[in-house]
């Protein structure tokens, strides 16, 4: 028995207004955050079982500018996903569905994410 179900609206079919860009960015950031968490988990596991090798790798990674840049982008995605997730939770209880509100809250989410990201990196280094 097979049920023909309607497919999700795909990316090539519809134009992407601001809220749609935020929506796909939520998914993409979620994907990268998952990869990051898996990386951290395996890094912790490796540092438990092979401490010397893991320490050397960590030093190599931390002295490289590219790693810091990737980490900076990752925290930006992190804050974006967190604030947009709160926005989604409000939608789940039925609040903020009007187009105007959705656009405004989207802008707020992007602004908050950027501000929080700069703030946290400022706090780390100063």
């Amino acid at each position: 028995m097979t049920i023909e179900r309607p497919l999700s609206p795909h990316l090539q079919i519809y134009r992407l207004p601001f809220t749609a860009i935020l929506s796909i960015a939520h998914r993409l950031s979620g994907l990268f955050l998952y990869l990051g968490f898996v990386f951290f988990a395996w890094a912790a596991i490796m540092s438990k079982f092979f401490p010397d090798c893991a320490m050397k790798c960590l030093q190599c990674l931390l002295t490289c500018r590219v790693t810091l840049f990737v980490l900076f982008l990752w925290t930006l995605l992190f804050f974006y996903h967190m604030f947009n997730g709160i926005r989604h939770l409000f939608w789940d209880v039925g609040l903020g569905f009007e187009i105007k509100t959705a656009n405004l809250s989207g802008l707020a989410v992007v602004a908050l994410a950027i501000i929080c990201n700069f703030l946290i990196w400022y706090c780390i280094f100063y």
Partner: protein
Amino acid sequence: MQNFVSHFKKVKNLGASGGAATHHFLMQRLSAIFLLPVVFWALISLLCLFHKILHGQINAPLWDFLQSQSLFYYIPLILMIIVGIYHGMLGIQVIIEDYIQCKIMKHFFIISCKLFSFFTILIFLFTFIL
């Protein structure tokens, strides 16, 4: 009596998946809400650790320093990684369901993603219990 029944109860176990979809929805939201305070705590403890490392309060090698720290620094980090991987696994399942149409490939990817996630969480927990 129907007036007192929640919307969630009304939709539960309807639909073709026999309740799995509602359960998935609920678990994703619950893990998200759980992650919010945990993430806040984890950020504070990470900032404290970074602050100690970068401002030279350590006189031991980094690895010994990290091992000598209180468990309160690590509890939120461990919780965040475990629940974060679980939450991410649920999210990736939705992405796969949406964008992969071949049934065999779809189930293959979902099952391997779940197996990999639970395997990672299990070994991660195991390293801290040891």
